[in-house]
């Protein structure tokens, strides 16, 4: 033998055995997203085109164009950044570096978060903000503080609010005509309108759900919304796929969705909503409208900005559910994106606490910590549920 290799322990790695790698995890996301893109194409392009609601071929293939533009822009921006700021030797090294930066994720998520009919320049600006300002400047893959796609989306939403809301409404109208439903708004704005009108959450299922046909419509995805986040069914499928592939942690989506469900169910009961089981339709509607399921599976499980400890992940998910419920039930906005951004600010704190109370020995101190945390969560949730009976205070603040 000519050469004795020196390396660090351990000498066998799961990566080398081919079972799991960062690259595979990233491409698993891509695979899961493909079904969303296809569904978005069918619901936003194909069906309206067949029904004659849209006549231009451009709008037929707009979903694909959005995604492609997003991915291409992201990768190009990152490649340019690497070319300028990192000393790479040769074209090959540039390609490898760009590939292992996984820039496509940002552009893909941004294009899926935006409505289909949004102008392309918004996606390009979003990719620039996300990839360059929020990811590469912080040091690239794994070093960013915020989820780049999410914060970029939030910035876009504020800056180009009119354009994004208008294109969303346009799309909802087209969809309503196609599917013969009366909705003129996406589910969450529709709920917000009712909240503003009534001053509390005591609306009936007929006033809210009739607009969209049925809960089943919402579950399958026959509703207006953003390109990627319309189908609850696909979200569940993607969750199962990603968990089986061990690409995401099972905890965050489950606890997040469960928290939102419990709080909105409590709100339904306290507001005496009609329907079976004291208005179980409301929490279901709450989960299926807007981007909660999409956010739970794809955004809240982002590796970089969520806690690393398993128990920290649970704390994070519950907190996320509480913040989302607060925004959703008391203010009436979708709230998923902004709550993920807000709670990811707390990630280092949650991680520190969680890793301290996570040990091989469970003693009274640890139990006290857990009890304390659950108590705080319980109090906040109870407050949110209580406030849903009288929204006048929040309405005053957020009325236009």
């Amino acid at each position, binding site marked *: *033998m*000519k*050469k*004795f*290799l*020196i*390396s*660090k*322990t*351990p*000498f*066998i*790695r*799961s*990566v*080398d*055995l081919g079972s*799991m*790698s*960062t*690259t*595979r*995890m990233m491409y698993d996301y891509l695979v899961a997203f493909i079904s969303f893109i296809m569904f978005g194409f069918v619901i936003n392009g194909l069906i309206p085109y067949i029904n004659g609601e849209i006549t231009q071929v451009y709008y037929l293939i707009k979903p694909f164009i959005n995604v492609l533009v997003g991915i291409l822009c992201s990768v190009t921006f990152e490649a340019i950044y690497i070319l300028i700021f990192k000393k790479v030797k040769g074209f090959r090294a540039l390609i490898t570096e760009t590939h*292992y930066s996984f820039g496509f994720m940002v552009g893909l998520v941004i294009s899926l978060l935006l409505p289909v009919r949004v102008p392309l320049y918004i996606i390009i600006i979003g990719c620039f903000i996300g990839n360059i300002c929020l990811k590469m400047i912080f*040091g*690239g*893959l*794994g*070093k960013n503080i915020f989820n780049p796609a999410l914060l970029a989306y939030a910035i876009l939403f504020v800056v180009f609010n009119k354009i994004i809301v208008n294109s969303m409404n346009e799309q909802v109208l087209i969809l309503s005509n196609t599917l013969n439903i009366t909705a003129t708004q996406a589910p969450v704005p529709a709920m917000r309108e009712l909240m503003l009108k009534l001053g509390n959450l005591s609306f009936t299922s007929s006033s809210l759900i009739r607009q969209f046909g049925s809960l089943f419509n919402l579950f399958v995805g026959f509703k207006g919304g953003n390109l990627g986040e319309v189908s609850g069914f696909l979200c569940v499928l993607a969750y199962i796929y990603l968990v089986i592939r061990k690409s995401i*942690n099972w905890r965050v989506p489950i606890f997040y969705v469960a928290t939102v469900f419990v709080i909105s169910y409590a709100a339904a009961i306290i507001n005496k909503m009609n329907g079976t089981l004291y208005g179980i339709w409301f929490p279901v509607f709450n989960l299926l409208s807007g981007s909660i399921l999409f956010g739970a599976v794809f955004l809240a499980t982002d*590796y*970089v*900005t*969520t*806690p*690393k*400890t*398993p128990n920290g*992940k649970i704390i994070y998910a519950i907190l996320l559910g509480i913040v989302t419920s607060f925004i959703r039930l008391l203010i009436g906005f979708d709230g998923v994106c902004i709550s993920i951004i807000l709670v990811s600010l707390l990630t280092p704190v949650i*991680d*520190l606490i969680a*890793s*301290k109370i*996570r*040990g*091989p*020995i*469970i003693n009274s101190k640890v139990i006290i910590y857990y009890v304390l945390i659950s108590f705080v969560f319980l109090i906040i949730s109870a407050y949110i549920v209580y406030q849903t009976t009288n929204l006048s205070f929040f309405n005053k603040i957020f009325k236009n």
Partner: protein
Amino acid sequence: MFLKVHGIKLHGKKRLSIKNPIENALNPSVVYFPLESNGVLYKKVVEIGTRVLMGQPILYREDRYAHPVCSSVSGTVSDIKKMLHSNGKVVEMLEITNDFKEETYYSTCSNIDLSRDEIVNKVKNAGIVGLGGAGFPTYVKYLPKQSANLIIINAAECEPYITCDFVSILENADKLIRGLKYIMKANGAKQGVIAIKKAKVEAVELLTEKLKSEKHIKLFLLKDKYPVGWEKHIVERVTKKTYAALPREIGVIVNNVQTAICVCEAVEENKPLIEKVITVSGEGIKEPKNLRIKIGTKFSTLLERCGGYIDNLEEAYVIAGGPLSGKSMPNDDFIITSNLNNVVVLLKSPTVITLNCIGCGKCAEICPVKLTPTLIKKAYDSNKISTIEALNTMKCVRCGLCSYICPSRVDVSETVGLAKDLLVTSKDVKLDQKK
């Protein structure tokens, strides 16, 4: 509180050597004994040129864990040379040239009905150290006057490729059981347990057969997962209790299979620790084997017994120890010390791309002591000792699973080990300052 350990099922690769019975490789021409091993100094009690017999004490450990080290061959002390220790350091070693006469320093005794102290003394004088890997002097575990409740023989052998304990059980089951009885007697323990993996069917069957007549010795079956062989885990599984530092706190003593066999030989035959069984395995070896060797043998002389490296091998890892916790050697002329159980020759893995940590948390999930390796790494990289301490880094058992599972191929366990060392040294500095 009893806690489930998040182990992982590894591809054992034990098939390479598991069917091969122990082969003797007991005739090295020279043997070497380190004068310093893992920071412990040994004082030599023989001069260069003296003739020593097999089993004669040649080195002496002088600190509070005093014990002799015995020559494994008969011959002359020929030199002091700098040689490569199996821990990867080059240290001074005593060289003994074998004269192949096999004259023994010790004589077999007929009286084996010994008192407690006599057994402990015999174990001490035989220079027996833990053969599982730590190399801690065995008799020290028996010293406390207080009786132990339970003796556990650790036969888990959970790292891939290693089969030496398994074949030792098959070959020396009687000696193992007798050794366990002596250890029980030396500690006044009423109960003995042999903890073995479920998957080792043949050994389990053999031991069940042998233990039929034994009332006080039981077999305990472990899952086929890594790291079930970790001392704390075994104690927790068997006793459902936990402890802080040493199992002695809850009246338990854990010994390795080969240690127990050595104790038996020391008590019955007065034979000191001069031989042990090691596994030479891995994809880079032509004929993986279990060899009985003299302690102090150079690894390169054993290579021929195993047919050498496979043909056309350009580069490979030669690992002293298991693939998860061992050390890669810069050449194959290293000395097999008493705490080395196996040598694995692994081929180079095809992918060596290391990406940034993306914080997926898989290392935190798999950690058997529930640490968060990625956070410790972050704290170490930014040199925050207080954070390292707050993250319970001292509990790390260096199993290597965090690096194993890392999808980005980050060397997490290496960094956590460094962080632990940093913590230990910083604590020592603090103590010195106080003094």
